[in-house]
């Protein structure tokens, strides 16, 4: 058996082994919105992803826009001029956002996708392909990212294989706004300062209750003790600064007085405004 006779299917070791992608919630919103607005005859939506490549190699996907396309069994046609126009417009606002890949809705990667991926790899090296499953085929909405890897047989290029890369959802903005607002289909009003505090404090007290319960369970032997968690709890409790009661009281009273002072000042300012306005408009020249 001459081992040299066999040709070996060779996977180019992905130089992108450490490549991962981060996607912002805005992109997902954009994609869903475009999907909902797609023209009736289109099965799926295709568009460009914009973002930047971070210094450690992660691709940060920050924005996206849809590109009209037509698709049939044999061929796919993409409106390239539209794509360029939108790119130029977007770059006027944000010159740092460049093309990092493209997206399509739908679960898997189809034949037509390879062609489109080819087009995008002419625009940027190693584009990311994002699929967003709007059909919820697996019973959940999956967002996956792929890069294309060349399959070579010896020296000949055979095909391109789509390899999945780890995708991270970077949800900081959505958290800031509050998932409650973005999750429901209709929210009547934003929580104002005090209502938000209420919600937060409720969450905090729920967390503290959980920790109490856990500690009780461990002490009574209901739950096996996990040393790591125990250490965390001990650290947290120990991180409360040790202040003697009088010192702490003084600190608290000082801050309280500062806040009261500011409140008083702003009330005075408002009263003064009311007065000034009355004087100004009520004054008549006799």
């Amino acid at each position, binding site marked *: 058996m001459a081992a040299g006779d066999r040709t070996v299917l060779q996977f180019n070791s992905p130089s992108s082994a450490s490549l991962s992608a981060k996607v912002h919630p805005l992109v997902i*919103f954009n994609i*869903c919105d475009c999907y909902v607005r797609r023209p009736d005859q289109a099965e799926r939506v295709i568009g460009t992803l914009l973002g930047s490549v971070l210094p450690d190699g992660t691709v940060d996907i920050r924005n996206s826009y849809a590109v009209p396309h037509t698709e049939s069994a044999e061929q796919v046609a993409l409106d390239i001029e539209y794509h360029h126009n939108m790119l130029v*417009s977007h770059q006027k606002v944000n010159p740092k956002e460049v093309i990092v890949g493209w997206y399509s809705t739908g679960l898997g990667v189809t034949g037509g996708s390879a062609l489109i991926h080819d087009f995008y790899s002419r625009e940027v090296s190693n584009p990311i392909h994002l699929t967003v499953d*709007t059909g919820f085929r697996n019973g959940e909405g999956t967002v996956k990212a792929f890069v294309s890897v060349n399959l070579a047989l010896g020296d000949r290029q055979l095909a391109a294989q789509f390899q999945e890369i780890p995708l991270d959802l970077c949800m900081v903005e*959505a958290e800031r706004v509050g998932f409650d607002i973005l999750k429901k289909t209709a929210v009547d009003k934003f929580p104002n300062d005090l209502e938000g505090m209420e919600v937060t404090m409720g969450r*905090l007290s729920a967390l503290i209750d959980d920790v109490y319960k856990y500690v009780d369970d461990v002490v009574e032997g209901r739950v096996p003790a996990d040393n790591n968690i125990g250490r965390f709890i001990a650290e947290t409790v120990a991180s409360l600064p040790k202040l003697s009661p009088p010192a702490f009281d003084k600190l608290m009273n000082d801050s309280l007085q500062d*806040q009261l002072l500011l409140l008083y000042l702003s009330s005075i300012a408002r009263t003064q*405004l009311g007065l000034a306005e009355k004087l100004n408009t009520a004054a008549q020249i006799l």
Partner: protein
Amino acid sequence: MANSMAKSFLQAAATEEVVSPLRVVQIEGLVILKIIKHCKEFSPALVTGQLLGLDVGSVLEVTNCFPFPIREEDEEIEADGANYQLEMMRCLREVNVDNNTVGWYQSTILGSYQTVELIETFMNYQENIRRCVCIIYDPSRSNQGVLALKALKLSDSFMELYRANSFTGEKLREKNLSWMDIFEEIPIKVSNSALISAFMTELESDTPVTQCDYDRLQLSSNPYMERNMEFLIECMDDLSVEQQKFQFYYRSLSRQQAQQQAWLQKRRADNMQRKAAGEDPLPEEDPSNPIFKPIPEPSRLESFLITNQIANYCNQINGVSGQSFNRLYLMKSLHDN
């Protein structure tokens, strides 16, 4: 004989539809995220963008938006700006996005957005669009864990006055317009399509506590309060300058009136003498005399705007103080336990 009931088509077409007052602005989550992203990226520079959507009955729906590039000071960029807008609208039209401009959004710092430029932009927009809103977003307040998004509209009575360009005391008293009536704030409702809410519910992280909560529970609100106070003090200075202008006006007006009276007296005395001497009396008015020239009353617009700003700062201070009280008492109880 249903003729009396049915209006003829001509009649129906001729009666103008009554514009129902704007009660609610319905924004999509997508627009909110876009605005936040755009304002945050460029803060502390102030940015603006265009809102697109639909005007339905008493609800103004905002379904999409796009940002404006930062305007340079060059003249030739003006044409570019208009081109950019047209280009964006055309491209968005192709993907079935609502093509209707319903207003614009802008970012602000600590709520200092009441300026004359805002009013002018409003008037410009109002000429073309029947109903438009301005959405103001304050990125500095999101560090406090509050979503500071407001929808504003100029009140109708104010717009009429502005068009007539007269802000004198009597006019304002006539209309009963105070500084609170310039801007009307419209409540905002958020709506999301079912697909997006399904995704968000799916993708929400499992931790019960979010970044928002961390921000809210932060104990140090001092830098924010300090800046607020600085702005407040500056505004008070501006207000006092405006007050002094008024005082000066009143003083010169009363001085002028005194002069007029004195002159009138002299004229009357002269006329008595002339009558006694048998000559014609001189007229009692003399429009060419400079003391009869009416002094223009300074416009109250600036002082109204400044007053609005001050009220805003005061409200913000109140809000943040309320939060701080909560936090302090929370600290106290934790410490006691």
